[in-house]
């Protein structure tokens, strides 16, 4: 019996199934921890505490979350137009280049209130530009974006190494980094902002870009589901023939959507470069672009789901680091393995439990009506 076309209530689809998937992942992670002779329940406790237990932990968790929201949204919006943008990593990296170039040129001349928006725009613009080329190749030359965006990740990586080692490096420095931006180019930290309104919290990398990420969630939601452009995007994603029939130009949709996707990925640089490092450096993207694919898969390409999935990955990153620190036997690599299990069960095997749940649902409360030929 085929269950894929039987509809389940939203809460089962969006909440129950993901939670069950995570439980399964944790179960297998627990087995691994057991195998090395540690207590899995304790390990989970350390992880949760490490992610939420105190204000510094929360700050770090949300700082990681910010990156995942940007890259997750980037993958998701492209996915609605049936484009698989694997190039978030490269687009984020080049977004950083945009921030770096503008700030190196302008940070001595403009006040923060002007400079910061320019930095954000530069990040988005450069990210979009890096996505535009594969998009154009897909639309007009039929080169598949999956291939081209992967290749553009490598190109971005090489380009950045070249630029940082040979061109942008601070004169006299040994490490391939630019000079530090002047203070007016720094995105305010959350602990600074909170201190401004009288709340004292520990210093963490969490900065204003977290709010930008939340705003992007809302904007993506509005764009995709509430505007005529989103309508055109979804139409083209569902059926190219129907889009043509409806007077929508699929090529245009490919280019616009990929540019938006690239811009969202580029915003990772706002968090990392403008918010934390305050200089352009190598490999600041640290795989966030790739993890964004898992985030989008897990969040079912919906901004709310992506927010939740990003938070989960934030917890895994921060809590995982804490776990590796607290329990010597559990290494960093072990934490990566646990993350891998969660991606496996929530992403690749996301629908594994669904048929069973559908049968259970039909048995408990038969609500779905199958279609008749």
């Amino acid at each position, binding site marked *: *019996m*085929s269950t894929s076309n039987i509809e389940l209530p939203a809460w089962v689809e969006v909440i129950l199934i993901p939670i069950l998937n995570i439980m399964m992942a944790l179960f297998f992670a627990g087995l691994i921890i057991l195998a090395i002779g540690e207590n899995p329940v304790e390990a989970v406790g350390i992880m949760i505490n490490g992610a939420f237990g105190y204000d510094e932990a929360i700050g770090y968790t949300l700082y990681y979350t910010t990156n995942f929201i940007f890259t997750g949204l980037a993958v998701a919006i492209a996915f609605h137009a049936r484009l698989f943008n694997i190039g978030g990593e490269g687009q984020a990296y080049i977004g950083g280049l945009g921030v770096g170039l503008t700030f190196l040129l302008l940070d001595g001349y403009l006040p923060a209130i002007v400079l910061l928006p320019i930095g954000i725009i530069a990040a988005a613009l450069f990210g979009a530009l890096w996505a535009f080329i594969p998009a154009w190749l897909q639309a007009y030359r039929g080169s598949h974006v999956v291939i081209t965006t992967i290749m553009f990740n490598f190109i971005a990586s090489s380009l950045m190494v070249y630029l940082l080692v040979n061109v942008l490096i601070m004169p006299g420095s040994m490490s391939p980094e630019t000079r530090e931006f002047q203070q007016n180019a720094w995105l305010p930290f959350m602990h600074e902002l909170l201190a401004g309104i009288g709340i004292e919290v520990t210093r963490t990398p969490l900065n204003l870009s977290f709010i930008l990420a939340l705003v992007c969630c809302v904007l993506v939601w*509005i764009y995709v589901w*509430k*505007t*005529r452009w989103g*309508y*055109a995007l*979804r*139409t083209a994603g*569902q*059926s190219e*023939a*129907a889009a*043509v*029939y*409806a*007077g*929508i130009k699929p090529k245009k949709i490919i280019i616009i959507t990929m540019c938006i996707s690239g811009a969202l990925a580029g915003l990772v640089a706002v968090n990392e470069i403008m918010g934390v490092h305050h200089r352009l450096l190598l490999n600041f993207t640290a795989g966030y672009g790739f993890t964004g694919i898992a985030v989008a898969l897990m969040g079912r390409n919906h901004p709310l789901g992506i927010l939740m999935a990003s938070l989960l990955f934030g917890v895994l990153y921060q809590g995982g680091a804490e776990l590796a620190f607290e329990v010597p036997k559990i290494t960093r690599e072990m934490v990566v393995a646990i993350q891998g299990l969660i991606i496996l069960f929530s992403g690749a095997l996301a629908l594994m439990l669904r048929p069973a749940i559908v049968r259970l649902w039909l048995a408990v409360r*038969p*609500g*779905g*009506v*199958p*279609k*008749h*030929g």
Partner: protein
Amino acid sequence: MSKQEATTQSESNSSPLAIELKNICKRFGQVQANRNINLQVTRGTIHGIVGENGAGKSTLMSILYGFYQADSGEILINDQPIKIKNSRDAIAAGIGMVHQHFMLVDTFTVLENVMLGAEQSARLDTSAVNAREVLQHLGDEYQLSVPLDAITGDLPVGQQQRTEILKALYRNAEILILDEPTGVLTPQEADQLFRVLEALKQRGVTVILITHKLREIMDITDNVSVLRLGEIVSTQRTCDTNTSQLAELMVGRKLETQHFPKIDNPDTDAGIDIQHVSVLDDRGLPRLNDISFEVKRGEIVGIAGVAGNGQSTLLEVLAGIQKPHKGRFVINGHTVTPESIVGPKEMREIGVQHVPEDRLRLGLIKSFTAAESSVLGYQNRKRFNWRLFLNIRRIRAACKRLMEAFDVRPPDPKLKSSSFSGGNQQKLILARELDQSPSVLLIGQPTRGVDIGAIELIHQKIIDMRDANCAVLLVSVELDEIMTLSDRILVMFEGQIVGTMKGSDADKTTLGLMMANALPQSGGGPTESAA
């Protein structure tokens, strides 16, 4: 055992039953899909099952084939009670099914498709030798020859369907269920299929034919059962009934036979004027070859022809989806040439509306709500937008209004487009396009896969458009439909117009011959180049 023999014998001289269903009930939530179904199918006969979409035909066959379990009731195959939990049980019981949408791997050869899942050993080459022998034999016996080494995807649909039938026979099916088998076939292919079914019947195979085409029921079946709202409302010998009685039973009310007055050469200007239009495909072969004709305002011109002779291309060119390579046409006062194209969006704006042939691929988006689908192509209109945003509330209200005007059921704009039956999807698309009060209406296959009840309404709406002085171009593979609606009929063959007839004196034989391009001196068409 002996008791059963006794009962079968006590049922006296009636012929042996291949299938007997007793009190089958199946409920999905609030919907009683099947209610107390009692059905007896005699061995070696062709039994037709008719009913509107949603009457429960597919559910009943799914129960028989093991996709669903009945809530209650009993299934007997060859007088043996049997539980069918999945399709493997069904196959073991000698039941084979040919689905409406084929279950074939396009990139496999016919032989590989037939063997798939029924290989006799792990080594494919030895099974292949056996299978080839069996299939040759089956092919000869039932006149079911299919090129075994051809790639399935390259074959015409009729041959793919034969492959499905061979698959069932290869698995020793003695009962063959065919679900809407002629929906995708040309009339010739349908005839061939019926000859095959006849041959199967002669060899003792029991055939269940599910269709909504009553003519087919009359032509080929021995017995016929009518389903309405989940119940069997009648089972009788086909020779004791007729199409209008069956139609009434299906719909549950008396149907008027539609007869519309024909307009002969109206005294109006042309809404569409096509001159020497040609279209080439990717390989440079002509899809449309020097087409010229006109459609006047207040006139319905019907394009008849076997599917695939360029009708689809013609519609798409006129709708702005494809561009002509040669020639020019004037549509509602706007001239289109290969150099100056008018796109689908602009066509809508100049009063050219298009109801596409393939409603699921073009006409609506399955995953969208009905409301969203009801503005497809009009999503940029001012009245559906508020500043940057789509005005969802107004879109829903407009959709609700369309649904009421065209009797779309259920009239719920929030329901997914794919949840509606074919007829209701079609009514929604028609409502969307007619709501624009078009000056030129292009309409393809308006009633393909649509219930009889809905056909009445759709035909009436098309006639209303003509009477409102709209120029209507109708493309359909249903000759009856063309003849019912058209004031003038053009016949297409291999991308050319090969014949013309007035609607008032059209006759089926002549049209049929024109469609096969077998009529000498047919309307000035360049027959010699096609021969």
